[in-house]
Every structure is written in C-alpha cells, then in structure tokens.
C-alpha cells in the first residue's frame, strides 16, 4: 500500500510538470470540453424559447442548469485512455510499463486524477460564468447534495474501468478508431449529452436503462438537479455498483488475454 501511495504522488508530480510544459494543449482541450455542452445548451434554449419557455419538464433555467452540471460531471469522469492505448501497443511503449512491479492501471488512474485536479478550477470558473450568463438555478434537497459526492465517484470509477477495458481492443487490432467512435456515439445519445433522456423517444430511454452510460452522466446530473426521488436514487446507486463489478471482472479477463497476445516490436 505504501509504495502505491508513493507511485500516486510521483505520478502527480510528473503530470503536473507535463501539463505546465504543454499549456497550449490544456487550452485547446478545455475549449473542446466546454464547447460541446454549450452548443447543445444554446440549441435547447432556442427550442424552449420558441415553444413557450419549456420543453417537457425542462424550462430554460432547467436546461441551463442541466448542461452546466453535465459539463462538470463529464469533466470529472472523462478519460482519454482509449485514444492513448493504441499508441502504447503499436509503438511498444507498453513493454516498459509491463516490467514494473505494479499494474499499469495505477499510473493511469494517478495521471487522470492529477490532471483533473489541475483543470477542475478552470472548469468551475467557466461553470460559474455560465450560471450567471444563462440564469441557471438548482434547488436540490440536502440529501441529494450529500449523495451526489459518492455517486460522482462511482461514476468516475465505472467510466474509468470500462474505458480502460475497451482500450485493450488495441491488443487485437490497430484500427481502434472505429470502435472508439461507435462507443462515443452511443455514449453521446444514451448518457444524456445531446438532450435530457426524458426528451428522447421511449425505446431509447428503455435502452439507456439497460446500458451503463446513463448511470455515468445523466444520473448524477439529474440527482443534483433535484429531479430524482430517494427510490430512484437507490436504484441508480445499485446500477452503478452492478456496473462497477461487471466492468472490473471484464477488465481482469480482457487484460489477461490481451497481454498474452501482445508482442512488442523489436522484442
């Protein structure tokens, strides 16, 4: 345990140094993270205004709150491992990580958390500006705010393990682009990033209940917006735990099989 903590501290220092080295990338990345929810927020505001101030159960202020909270939840749970793993396998960089006496997932977790710690203040500042610019308002009950923290952490864990597992596809094919994009499109619709899920067609809503995506994004968002009852929240927590267990089992199976087929170039 002690050496794991040391590893995390060391990774934090490395990530911090790298992020200051590549400040421009940080700005570019922030623009992308902010612009997408902003565009959908504006589109839905226009729709709501043209149809008398609300769509379904969402008024203009609700839409603003929904997409601003969504931006933050997405920021906290976001990973980039699926884009990076292919490079590691193709270039053989993974060999170095395999020689180390700890599972390579640890340095990825540490790297992810470190860069989030650095970028979160920027995102929160932007969120606050948006709250005033778009007159967002939320009034969640106290219990919802308290439950939000563990729900958010669970969402982060599930998304991380799931995407880390999916990234292993690179062991079997060098064309992960198509896989990544399919995942991304499913995620966009079924996690509530295009629109609050209650506005989607009924079959899509049912599908979203069965898949992990909504429990990673729209569930935490709706919780903080005070739109969920206690029972719904408990169901959501159950789904999150269920997917955490499933994804950890999948990770172990896939990783073991993947390392076996991995042959580094030049080795």
């Amino acid at each position, binding site marked *: 345990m002690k050496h794991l903590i040391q590893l995390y501290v060391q990774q934090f220092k490395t990530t911090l140094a790298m992020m200051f080295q*590549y400040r*421009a*990338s940080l700005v*570019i990345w922030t*623009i*992308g993270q902010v*612009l*997408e929810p*902003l*565009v959908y927020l*504006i*589109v*839905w505001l*226009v*729709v709501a205004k*043209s*149809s008398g101030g609300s*769509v*379904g159960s969402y008024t203009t202020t609700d839409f603003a709150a929904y997409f601003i909270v969504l931006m933050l939840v997405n920021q906290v749970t976001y990973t980039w491992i699926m884009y990076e793993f292919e490079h590691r396998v193709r270039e053989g960089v993974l060999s170095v990580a395999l020689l180390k006496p700890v599972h390579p997932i640890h340095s990825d977790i540490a790297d992810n958390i470190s860069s989030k710690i650095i970028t979160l203040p920027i995102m929160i500042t932007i969120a606050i500006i948006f709250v005033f610019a778009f007159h967002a308002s939320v009034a969640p009950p106290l219990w919802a705010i308290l439950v939000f923290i563990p729900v958010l952490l669970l969402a982060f864990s599930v998304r991380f393990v799931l995407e880390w597992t999916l990234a292993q596809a690179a062991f079997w094919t060098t*064309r992960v*682009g*198509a896989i990544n*994009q*399919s995942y991304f*499109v499913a995620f*966009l*619709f079924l996690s509530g990033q*295009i*629109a609050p899920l209650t*506005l*989607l*067609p009924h079959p899509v809503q049912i599908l979203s209940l069965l898949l992990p995506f909504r429990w990673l994004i729209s569930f935490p968002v709706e919780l903080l917006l005070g739109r969920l009852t206690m029972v719904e929240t408990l169901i959501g927590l159950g789904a999150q735990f269920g997917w955490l267990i499933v994804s950890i089992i999948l990770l172990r199976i896939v990783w073991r099989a993947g390392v076996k087929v991995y042959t580094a170039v030049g080795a």
Partner: protein
Amino acid sequence: MSYFRIFLAFLRVNIYGETAYRINFIIQLFQSLLNLGMTLGGLAIIFTYTNLLGGWQPNEVLALVGVYFLIGGIIRLIIQPGMEQLIESVRDGTLDFRLTKPADAQAIVSLQRVEIWEILEIILGLGVLIYALVKLGEIIGVLQAAEFVLMLTAGGVIIYSFFLILSTLSFWFVRVENILVIFQSVYEAGRWPVSLYPGWLRYGLTFIIPVAFATTIPAEALTSRLNWQTLVGAIALSIVLFIVSRIFWKTGLKRYSGASA
C-alpha cells in the same frame, strides 16, 4: 495549370500508398455513416419539439448539415493533411526536400498529402445536400447556384488561409502540432446556423475561427438568406486572408534554418 499537374502527381502517389490498405475504405465509410447518423439523430430529436430552429426549417438545417459534411470532407481531404505534414517537417527538418523543388514551395506543401478516403465524407455531404434541396422543393436558379459555389470557394479559401497561418506559427514556435485540433473541436459548432448563438460566440465563430464562412454562409446562399453585404464581405475577406497567409508563409520561411544546414 502546372499546379494542377503537381496536384495530380501527388494524388497518384497518395492513391498508390492508400490502395495497400484497402480496408481503410470500409472503416472510413463506417465512421462517416456513424457520424452522419449521429448528426441526423440529434436533429430528429430536436425537431420533434419544434419546427423552426432560429428561423431555419428542418430541411434547411439538413442542407446546412450537407454543407458541413462537404466542407469538413474537403478540409480533411486536402487542407489539413498537408498542413500537419508542414508542421511536422519544420520540426524534423525534412522541409528541406520540399524547398529544393523547382516549383512554388507553398503550393507543394499545400498539395503534398491527400487523404483520399475522405472523398466519402464529401459524397455523403453532397447526397444530404441534394436530398435536402429536393425536399425543400425550391428551384435553385442559376444565380443562387453561382452564389453557392462562390461562397463555398470563398469559405474554402478562408479556411485554407486560416490553416496556413496557424501552421506557419511552427516556424516561430516549433511545437504547435496541437494547434490544428482547435479547429476540429470548434468546427462541430458549425453544424448549427450561427444565428442561434449569442453575439460573442457568433463573432468568435465568424472572425476568430472562421467556421461560419465555411458552413452557415454557403448554406445561406442556398436557402435565399444571403444579402449582398455578406457576399461581398466574404469574397473580400477571402482575398485579404489569402494575401496575409502568403505573407506569413514568406516571413516564416525566412526564419527556417533547416535541420542539416
């Protein structure tokens, strides 16, 4: 005409290179269709709740989506690959080989790489555009068609000049490979008419990162929204930006010292 021959020569080389990886065709087709499906799905959801988005009818927005894919395809077919290569070759010094060729180096650099499968995105975009226009039932007159082609060309030149200016920054700051990514994420905003956006964002998408000139304005020409001020402005801007980018290129090149020299 000689530039066209250079282009054909590069095109041939790129096609030879790419035919070795024929499966890329299927993968690109799959990704383009997925991307289109995602956009259309989003539109379908939004238009179940309204029939007019910022003054645009569903089929007019569809025409805009067609233009968005068409221009996006052109950017990734010819503009972006050459510029990525330029940035890379300034860093590792291989730009030397381009400069010693007996033709204008800017032309060579701009035409050197063609991602041929992106042609699928262009065909898809054209398909969507034609479908939308048929649905609109509007007779596209010769004048309107001419305006559209003119605005598409102006938009293309503006985007090309913008990319070239960004890429020549590599002569001053060597590590700028991420800079072109800015455009990709901002271009997504061009799926929607820019008139939806609040003032600051609209100006940003028009004058700082010129997405509006590439997507909204050509689509405006087709849906009889274009006024002559915008038309003249777009043409003037494309000429000015083209000259400015040429100046950037010339000035930057003077700073280039090569890797071996």
